[in-house]
């Protein structure tokens, strides 16, 4: 029978003391933390010329349809500004917007629709007015060679066909809902995927017969899917806005990156990947 030297009463007192000390330390730490946008927060010139003062890490949250183009742009930006490295977080624009408003540490947000960018601007998390840098349109992605002979939106309603769409909250899902409504087609998908990349993957894997994805996704799939154009896609053109975020840890480099995306070089990369001006 061991002697119990610590009674619960003194144990509780010790705990309270430790917790109080921890709380005080945390409060002190929080109040002194600088808003680390730093002294270089004044927006520098928007020219995209190589600037040796641009350095540090830039975190870009971008729509998943921008993956290929932005990865290229990030590498080019790093070459032009060796001191700066760009890291990306690709995902559904609506998901990213929620993450930003919840406080995720990001410098730049590039969305696939004005609606999802609005979530961020309404919460005053974006600096100034977002700039539009690209447009995109929907296309039907089918298995290579189009074995099911799909030529229009109404073909997607053929019985036995498995069609996947994006969830309506995402830009591609909203656009899909618009074109389906305009075509007066009653389409019942088998799944509403969390983002456009997942929808494309389902077709690539052969699990789905067709998906409504962006033209850029079809082009970027490298032959794993075939694209079928349809006229109603021009009814729902996605506008891609980009903005520097209010709480950006590195707003100087963020502004430079946005300027680069809007520059001639940036626009050329986007055009090459299939984005419309």
């Amino acid at each position, binding site marked *: 029978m061991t002697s119990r030297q610590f009674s*619960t009463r003194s*144990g509780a007192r*010790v705990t309270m003391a430790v917790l109080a000390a921890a709380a005080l330390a945390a409060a002190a730490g929080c109040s002194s933390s600088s808003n680390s946008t730093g002294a270089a927060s004044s927006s520098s010139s928007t020219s995209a010329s190589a600037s040796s003062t641009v350095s540090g890490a830039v975190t870009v949250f971008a729509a998943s349809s921008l993956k290929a183009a932005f990865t290229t742009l990030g590498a080019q930006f790093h070459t032009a500004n060796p001191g700066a490295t760009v890291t990306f977080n690709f995902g*559904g624009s609506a*998901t990213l917007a929620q993450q930003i408003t919840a406080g995720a540490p990001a410098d730049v947000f590039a969305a696939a629709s004005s609606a999802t960018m609005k979530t961020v601007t309404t919460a005053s998390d974006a600096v100034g007015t977002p700039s539009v840098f690209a447009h995109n349109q929907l296309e039907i992605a089918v298995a290579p060679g189009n074995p099911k002979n799909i030529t229009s939106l109404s073909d997607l309603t053929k019985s036995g066909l498995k069609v996947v769409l994006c969830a309506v909250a995402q830009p591609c899902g909203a656009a899909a809902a618009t074109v389906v409504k305009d075509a007066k087609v009653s389409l019942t998908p088998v*799944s509403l995927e969390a983002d456009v990349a997942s929808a494309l993957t389902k077709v690539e894997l*052969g699990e789905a017969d067709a998906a409504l994805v962006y033209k850029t996704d079809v082009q970027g799939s490298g032959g794993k899917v075939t694209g079928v154009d349809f006229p109603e896609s021009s009814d729902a053109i996605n506008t891609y806005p980009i903005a520097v975020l209010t709480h950006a840890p590195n707003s100087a480099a963020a502004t430079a990156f946005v300027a680069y995306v809007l520059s001639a070089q940036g626009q050329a990369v986007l055009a090459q990947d299939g984005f419309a001006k």
Partner: protein
Amino acid sequence: MTVTTLPDEPTRRSRDAGAPGRRIPAFLFLPALLGLLFLVLPLIGLLVRTPWGSLSQQLAGTDVTAALRLSLVSASLATLVSLVLGVPLAWVLARIEFPGRRVVRSLVTLPLVMPPVVGGVALLLALGRNGVLGRYLESWFGYSLPFTTAGVVVAEAFVAMPFLVISVEGALRTADARYEEAAATLGASRLTVLRRVTLPLIAPGLAAGTVLCWARALGEFGATITFAGNFPGRTQTMPLAVYLAMEDDPQAAIVLSLILLAVSLIVLVSLRERWTTTP
């Protein structure tokens, strides 16, 4: 012979009644408290942020009944599948000596360490339309598991069955084999021994494993959305509904989370402790 109880030693009755007879050392009390806070704070946060005023309004705008019903049904079916397949598997692993038993045990518990999305991808590659086995399902029966409720059950059973297998295997190992031997010497057939001696003996472990399996199946997200997809009423379980609601309507997501939490809590609390712990 009289037995005297020593003054500060708790009596059996007071210990069963939960009377605080034991003193907690400070070096255990603090981590325990922090651990409790860590687990409970997010729940408190959820309760604090719930829009209590507009609760019914939020509920009306969501597919909550469909998602909840689907979640409960698929979790229960997945648990049933796990019981039918998992208990025999656990019995074989615990009682039969065969070469490679350790490897088999590791393979069986692999879904536990595998990220659920990886599990979903693996299921697609095996049971999808072009999958190793799935292509035969498709060509012979015209049936494919992805995008169906059966697919949801398969995905949930895949991630949850190892919990049951481990729990039952553990119970079987620690069960006293002498009872079974005694029954056998008294003339009971193997089936009778299993039914009347083994299963009642491992009942607490079996019950605990079943509850764990059900809870895991209910909360499954990654494998479900990857393998079965997401469609309201057919494959959109509560976790999927919460995730998607989070994208454009966090308030609705909070309400859905609260409902799932309440249901889970009711089930777990209503389980008597004595059913799941060994006496």
